[in-house]
């Protein structure tokens, strides 16, 4: 019960931060997996960022090659992201990360075969929140 409240509070904080600082829309807190409607290990936040948060390096290369859309307009449409709220004082394990990924649906993008991806939000005591992309498997880094 304490764990549930803790997770809920983290999710609320992250949702507020995404909404007011990062202009995300369609935000909601999910407590149950959409695939098998089992209870998540902790509540997760899903939402739509104002612009594309992540472009796979293969897509980056494809964009560079195709001169037709030099600005990459096609890939500027945002995708729904799943955010896992955590606190800096927590200890996670590979097993817990694996459980989180296993309870998530496959990637909704045009490439369902690519490894799943979540946004890892880590909250500090001073209410700073940092966001990291966590991939389920070996995904080469982006060219930036």
């Amino acid at each position, binding site marked *: 019960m304490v764990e549930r409240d803790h997770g809920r509070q983290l999710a609320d904080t992250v949702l507020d931060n995404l909404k007011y600082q990062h202009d995300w829309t369609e935000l909601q807190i999910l407590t149950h997996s959409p*695939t098998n409607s089992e209870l998540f290990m902790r509540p997760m936040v899903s939402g739509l960022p104002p612009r594309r*948060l992540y472009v796979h390096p293969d897509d980056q290369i494809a964009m560079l090659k195709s001169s037709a859309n030099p600005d990459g307009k096609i890939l500027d449409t945002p995708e729904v992201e799943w955010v896992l709220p955590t606190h*800096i004082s927590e200890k996670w394990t*590979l097993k817990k990360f694996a459980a989180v990924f296993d309870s998530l649906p496959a990637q909704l993008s045009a490439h369902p075969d690519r490894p799943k991806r979540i946004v890892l939000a880590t909250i500090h005591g001073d209410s700073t929140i940092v*966001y990291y992309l966590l*991939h389920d498997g070996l995904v*080469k*880094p982006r060219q930036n």
Partner: protein
Amino acid sequence: MASLSSDERPLVRVSKVAGRYLLFDIEDVMYLRRNYNICSVFVGTIPQNPQQNLFMGLPLELMPEEAQVLVEKKVACVIDDATFHLNRLAAFDELSRRAYVQSLNNQGKQMQMAVIESQNRNKLNQQGKSKKKKKMSKTDLEEPKDMSSNNDVNGPIEADESNILFDSTPTTPKPTVKLPVEVEGYLLTPTTSSFLLPSSPRPGLDSSATVDIPASYPLFAHLHDKGYYMMPGLRFGCDYNVYPGDPLRFHSHFAGVHFGWDEEITMMDLVGGGRLGTSVKKGYLIGGAVVEDPDIKDTDTDTGHSNSRDQVNNQSRLKGGPVAPPVRTFCLEWAGM
């Protein structure tokens, strides 16, 4: 040796010396780098310049993980050099002992002949040059530079025309040795002990010494199976720098850190690693061997990983096939917000 296909090539001999896994044969080093993604680190100083430590030479020191992965892929065997050499040397009878010494002597002689030959060739070239020079300026016949160039060569002289020109210099005509068959030969110290190895019964996998592998071995083996090249990770504060190809051609993609399946990971480590990795254009890779809960069956969401497990079961007999236990990996990148 390098031209042999991988099937007929005998097992690479990894020498275990004082807990280190060393390769002394450059053929083996090249073979492993080309075919088995093993780069590792040269640790030998160069005899001509032993004070510097930027350019190291043989031997190559393998990480224990690399030695183990090669043993498991049936590519190499690890031999404890101290015991092996004592056993092997004691096993020599007088005849083969003499044959071995004789072969060393022969090699030394061949080496010295080759050196003399190349000296002769150099001298001929030099003489040709100096003659040309003399045609241009006959006046400075007794130029000290020419004298010294002629004197410091102590090898046999092919033709003494140039000495005639130097009649003022007190050169004693040296005995011209056309083909120096009578050389006593250099005393060679072989850099590998391949002459000592038994020719017919190659050391097999069963004679392999144990490898003290670190806990991070499953992650290493998993990445190695996938064709990545690993280098020690000190530079980026991780267990392995993971390269998508030969490090001479590619930047590394990941800074890999191993964790146990139930080992606690502090969030600060993830944030710090992810941030560092992103700032050097890498992903921060965490991973470790999966420990199955005995009561949980494989679900559909896990198919990718159970596939790799089947491959392990089917192909572990094959040379160079995958050997890693089921491993799960995660990559972390800064989200840029």
